[in-house]
């Protein structure tokens, strides 16, 4: 092995370094498709930059989705309304139960609806 052989080798290395081996557009697209598929598989929202809160989605899935949320909201509003303006039967029943105890009180939040203060 001589200096000349080493010099030949350096010339070959140099030629190899300058070889243009660009990837095909098809490869670039395949790799990008893999990346986006993998992002979806890993369960993060693509392009938003921030993952969606998973707890909310799990809760919705458990109760049956957004229609179930609408049902829950309606029931809550009706319950609140019954509390604020109870029908006569509800008020009587409540009074009957609550007045049976010596230290129970019914407090009328809205006197205009004829809610009486019951004293034991």
């Amino acid at each position, binding site marked *: 092995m001589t200096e000349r*052989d080493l010099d030949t080798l350096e010339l070959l290395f140099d030629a190899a370094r300058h070889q243009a081996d660009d*990837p095909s557009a098809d*490869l670039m697209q395949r*790799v990008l498709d893999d990346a986006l598929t993998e992002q979806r598989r890993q369960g993060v929202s693509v392009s938003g930059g921030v993952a969606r809160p998973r707890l909310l989605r799990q809760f919705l899935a458990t109760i049956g989705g957004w229609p179930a949320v609408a049902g829950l909201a309606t029931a809550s509003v009706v319950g609140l309304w019954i509390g604020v303006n109870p029908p006569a039967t509800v008020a009587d029943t409540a009074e009957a139960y609550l007045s049976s105890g010596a230290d129970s009180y019914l407090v009328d939040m809205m006197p205009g609806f004829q809610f009486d203060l019951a004293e034991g």
Partner: protein
Amino acid sequence: MALDALSDVSDDALLVLFANGDADAARLLNLRLTPRAYAQAMRMLRNRAEAEDVAQDAMMRLWKIAPEWRQGEAKVTTWLYRVVANLCTDRLRRQRSVAIDTIPEPEDGRASAADGIQDAARMNALYAALDELPERQRQAVVLRHIEGLGNPEIAEILEISTEAVESLTARGKRALAAILAGQREELGYSDD
């Protein structure tokens, strides 16, 4: 986030963004890293189809590892070089000899036909000689003298000491020079 806004972001930070679902981070990492992975695989395998398979496989491993990537611990490019080198080695083990007719023809417009043939002959000679080296020597020589990496980075890729890299590349280079001895004129190099 727009690609321009991410252009100054490091590879490992992009990988974290990728794991958080940023599609632009995926695009930018693809643009930055796939050409490197492909070029390295091409230099090691000398086969376009196989190099594409290796590059795609290596990048797929990167996408999969993204959620566990710890920023600042390792360079993404070093990790990728190692994965590509290992995948290429696996393929070379299965098919040690690379057929000369798989070497791509020079592309039109880059050089004259005669220059193209000359370049192909030189690359054939170099890679045929590289094929005769033991595996680790071959890897070290390709990473040092063709990929142009520094010894510390090669040491990290091959998981050996820097001294071992120096020894491998020195022995590899001497062996290559001996294999190619006397072919200078044949390969079209003059002494001028």
